[in-house]
């Protein structure tokens, strides 16, 4: 259960080598992402998160260091790098802008088709992925461009889920959605871990969502991983987080203030539900 799904060994990657635009995006990163977890990656804009994600599925090749996927060197056979793409499904930010087919069905089937599956398998996977993201069957024959923003986002995620990757990686899957949409997307994505036992990696700027959905957290700053631990342990380092422009979930701040004000509450509470459980007995 706790073996590494993805392991980075001293991995570096830079952009614009030999030009004035040179930038070291990922700098000597060491990472162990355990199988069967929901791992969150947090960090400011430009801290190297997106580059890190693209290194995971082989879109980018590390300049130095080694990446292992389930114990095997990702770049052992560079010609077979496409296999990594099917094992690590990467959902980009605003994935709805990549829809292009005439119907939702064809769009979701694009990935499985590229994998070379048979018609029957593709059909089964499309329906399964659609149910997974909580959409109705009736949508399949519609054009993806007549859907609402939230529906488009789900179709795009279904397109990756239909490839049934071992690791599902999502860059800001809930950006720009309303609170209800956010909740549903995150719950869907997390059930990919809880019901199928696969690994999920999430990037989000919302500390509340991270506290709620991620078991493990990786904190990035300036291309380096500066913390990698369970989310509780990471959120306890409030000063360190704020020194790199991040913060702890709002509720954690409230609990801390209550504690400072003399209330007998625990400091390590990071979700509203936990806080409720902690505070209700005090009121009675």
């Amino acid at each position, binding site marked *: 259960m706790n073996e590494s799904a993805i392991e980075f060994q001293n991995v570096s990657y830079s952009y614009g080598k030999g030009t004035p635009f040179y930038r070291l995006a990922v700098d000597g990163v060491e990472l162990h992402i355990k199988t069967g977890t929901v791992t969150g990656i947090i960090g400011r804009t430009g801290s190297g998160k997106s580059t890190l994600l693209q290194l995971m599925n082989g879109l980018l090749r590390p300049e130095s260091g080694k990446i292992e996927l389930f114990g095997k060197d990702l770049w052992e056979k560079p010609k077979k790098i496409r296999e990594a793409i099917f094992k690590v499904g990467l959902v*980009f930010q605003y994935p709805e802008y990549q829809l292009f087919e005439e119907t939702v069905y064809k769009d979701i089937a694009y990935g499985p088709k590229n994998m070379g599956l048979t018609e029957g398998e593709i059909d089964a996977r499309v329906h399964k992925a659609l149910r997974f993201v909580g959409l109705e069957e009736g949508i399949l024959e519609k054009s993806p461009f007549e859907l609402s923003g939230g529906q488009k986002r789900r179709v795009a995620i279904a397109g990756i889920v239909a490839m049934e990757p071992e690791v599902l990686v999502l860059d800001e899957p809930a950006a720009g959605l309303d609170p209800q949409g956010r909740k549903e997307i995150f719950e869907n994505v997390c059930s990919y871990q809880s019901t199928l036992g696969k690994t999920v990696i999430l990037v989000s700027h919302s500390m509340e969502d991270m506290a709620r959905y991620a078991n493990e957290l990786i904190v990035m700053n300036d291309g380096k991983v500066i913390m990698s631990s369970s989310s509780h342990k990471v959120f306890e380092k409030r000063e360190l987080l704020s020194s790199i422009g991040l913060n702890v979930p709002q509720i954690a701040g409230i609990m801390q203030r209550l504690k400072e004000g003399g209330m007998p509450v625990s400091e390590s509470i990071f979700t509203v539900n936990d806080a409720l459980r902690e505070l209700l007995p005090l009121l009675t």
Partner: protein
Amino acid sequence: MLKDITLGQFFPGNSLLHRLDPRTKILATLVLVIVVFLARSMLAYGVLLLLSVTFVLLSRISLKTVLKAVKPLIFIIAFTAVLNIFFARGENILFEKRFLFFHVVICAEGVVSAIKIALRIILLVIDTSVVLTYTTSPIDLTDGLEKLLSPLEKIGVHVHTFAMMMSLALRFIPTLIEEVDKIVSAQKSRGADFASGNVLSRIKALIPILVPLLLSSFRRADELALAMECRCYNNGKGRTRMKVLRMHITDAVFLAAMLLFVGIYFIPELPCSVLGIESLNFTF
């Protein structure tokens, strides 16, 4: 790969060419293009080459960058050169032989004209890029063009609209390149394969890139139009400029030098007799 495109690229600097008024540079480029096309004798090409070298030195842009502009045209240059060498007929036959069905004749005239055409293309590219695009920011360029064309306003041509369209188009080239990069990565993550298969399947593989790109271009155009209207854009009526174009003494000197040069070109007898040389063959 896409980032290597230098077409229309601007290299900020503070050289003499950078400081010239854009109108001066546009006119100078126009004159240079005409002169390059009119050049016939080898001596004329020599003089023009010397002039181009002077411009490169004046612009203080490294020769490597300048040659980068020629690189995409190497195929065209080689192609026309080969055609000229093998198919141009003249009196001085250098080589003649029969290979199976082919009667190969290479004439001195063909070789000379091949060299001339290659030189002509290289000169055109170097002159236009060094004098105009490398040393003039896109905004200055469109401002200059607008000013130069403004007399056409009197006969009902919407010069401002034209200039605005041009600057918007230039502005969006890097944005679109970035967008293409993003879409390509996203579709690769869905298993798209752009590198294998025959021509037809490679063209088909482009659809997942072109459709989202087209849609996002329309979306951007829509958003931009709205944003401009929100800022009360009214086709430039009554609009003043932060940077007013002004001709300086250097512009006058530069233009005078150019005109002098063209004068020498068009009246070959004049300088020849002054210099006491009869055989300077500048005619065309």
